[in-house]
């Protein structure tokens, strides 16, 4: 075997870390955690190829496009990266999506007349759903831990951050605060607000939480289905782990 692999080993880790920040907009989970990223190919000249696949050939095109474009942008931020190519595999619109993302074209440009507008509205809709879902999980956790509704609705952000919670609770607080900015611009004030930015009332909290539950039901449905379908697909295809290709330099003629 030729020891001509000049790709720095930490570059693969850097690319993976970037990809881990890309979320499936609908599921509110990272594309790497969901197992969507199938291969990463690091070329010596700083070009990066990222391959990904979704659970089925039919997965929603708009979400596929968003994820592909987010991956390209995330990896492109690394200082040593010269070019990023994202390849969606095994999808009915793979070619259109791959071409559109490669050109840096917007969704509408890639799909022409079939797409009626940009994807920003859709992205915002799902960010709000992610906010609601994270809030519901956190509030439920805190209520189960013995905090009262009156106490929780009175918390400001600092108070929430200072709250004594267990490890799971800490993670839920962080995840929630990451998305709080989706509905309110100010990074101070009441910790818990609804999707319109309005304050919550203690006596209405049980009904409010029950309504938020439906948002979780949807994302849980998709999450379970996606994971299940991907698992089945993987069983019939190849390995699950991200395959990092480190290209020996002599094979591609780079010195």
């Amino acid at each position, binding site marked *: 075997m030729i020891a001509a692999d000049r790709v720095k080993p930490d570059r693969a880790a850097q690319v993976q870390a970037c990809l881990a920040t890309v979320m499936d907009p609908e599921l509110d989970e990272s594309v790497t955690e969901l197992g969507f990223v199938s291969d990463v190919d690091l070329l010596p000249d700083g070009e990066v190829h990222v391959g990904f696949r979704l659970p*089925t050939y039919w997965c929603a095109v708009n979400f596929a496009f968003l994820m592909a474009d987010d991956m390209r942008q995330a990896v492109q931020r690394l200082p040593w990266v010269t070019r990023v190519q994202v390849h969606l595999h095994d999808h009915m619109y793979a070619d259109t999506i791959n071409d559109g993302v490669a050109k840096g074209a917007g969704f509408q440009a890639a799909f022409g007349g*079939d797409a009626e507008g940009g994807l920003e509205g859709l992205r915002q809709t799902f960010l709000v759903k992610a906010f609601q879902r994270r809030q519901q999980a956190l509030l439920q956790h805190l209520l189960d831990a013995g905090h009262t509704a009156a106490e929780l609705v009175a918390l400001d952000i600092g108070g929430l951050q200072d709250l004594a919670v267990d490890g799971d609770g800490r993670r839920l607080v962080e995840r929630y605060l990451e998305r709080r900015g989706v509905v309110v611009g100010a990074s101070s004030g009441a910790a818990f607000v609804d999707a319109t930015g309005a304050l919550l009332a203690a006596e209405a909290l049980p009904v409010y939480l029950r309504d938020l539950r439906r948002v979780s039901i949807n994302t849980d449905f998709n999450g379970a289905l996606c994971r299940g379908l991907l698992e089945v697909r993987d069983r019939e295809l190849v390995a699950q782990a991200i395959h990092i290709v480190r290209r020996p330099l002599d094979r591609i003629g780079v010195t």
Partner: protein
Amino acid sequence: MYKTASGEEIFIIDDHVHNWDASKANQKNVHGEQFINCFYAYHTFLSPPEKLWTREKFERYGGDQMHRDLFVDGYDDMAIFQPTYLTDFYVNGFNTTEQNAAVAANYPNRFIVNGAFDPRDEAAGLDAFEELAATYKLKGVKLYTGEWRGESRGYKLSDPWAEKYLALAEKLGVKNIHVHKGPTILPLDRDAFDVADIDIAATNFQGLNFIVEHCGLPRLDDFCWIATQETNVYGGLAVALPFIKKNPKYFSHVISQLLMWLGPDKLLYGSDYGIWTPDWLIEAFMAFELPADIAAETGVILDLEAKKKILGLNAARLYGIDIVAQKKLLANEKSRRST
């Protein structure tokens, strides 16, 4: 027929069954192959391991196997035969009204044969639908709004031509409109599982019943809002129900929300055969009890009365089936066959 421990007989009408041909010979293109692959993945993911079929069997099982799975090994008493044409993907269609009616004819009193229409057939399709309704005495249709047709990737029930078809259905007494709400492709930049068109159609056609298969999942929140406002919107439990085994807690949340928003009179059991089979689904549903914390959150009850409605009484009401008379017909049929 399902018998409870105390001997009570529960009459079961399965609102969603298919007999497809997805064999290689019938696949028209890669879409046909991918479509059945996707179904098979659903089957593999949610079925108990001992209920898994081979891929060959799954691609084409046929009417006799179907009859055995539904009515002999399964607990169904009757089933609503839903067509799914998909003629852009399959040479002879995935399953058509004509093919389904031929199978149904072999098993008298077991099936209700539903038809279909596609608003994109415009004026010519109206006549064809009228003829189909007369030939098969249709009481219902199954619409697949996400079906591909040439360049089109789907349609909405609020489209002008869709309204003409719905008006004709109402006039012909084809009152039960089953709508598959799953992944549609257009419009590409909207939420691909949008159920909003049901709202418009249900308001405009008060004489029709809209049974939303899969309860709008994964858009349960949108669906619940619509179904609560419209008295003629129902939820079909196909796809939601199979979670009962793999993820009972999840199923608990779904069914409790549906019971709270729609109530037990508006939900219909469907196996989605041949993706899943009624034997294990019914056993799991009959044994199922809502966890106390979830029941407390929504304040709903899923008792035997509610289960009976979901499993058969609601479908019987929508399709005008007299259960006592139907039981007699089936008993006569059984004795005729055994002699």
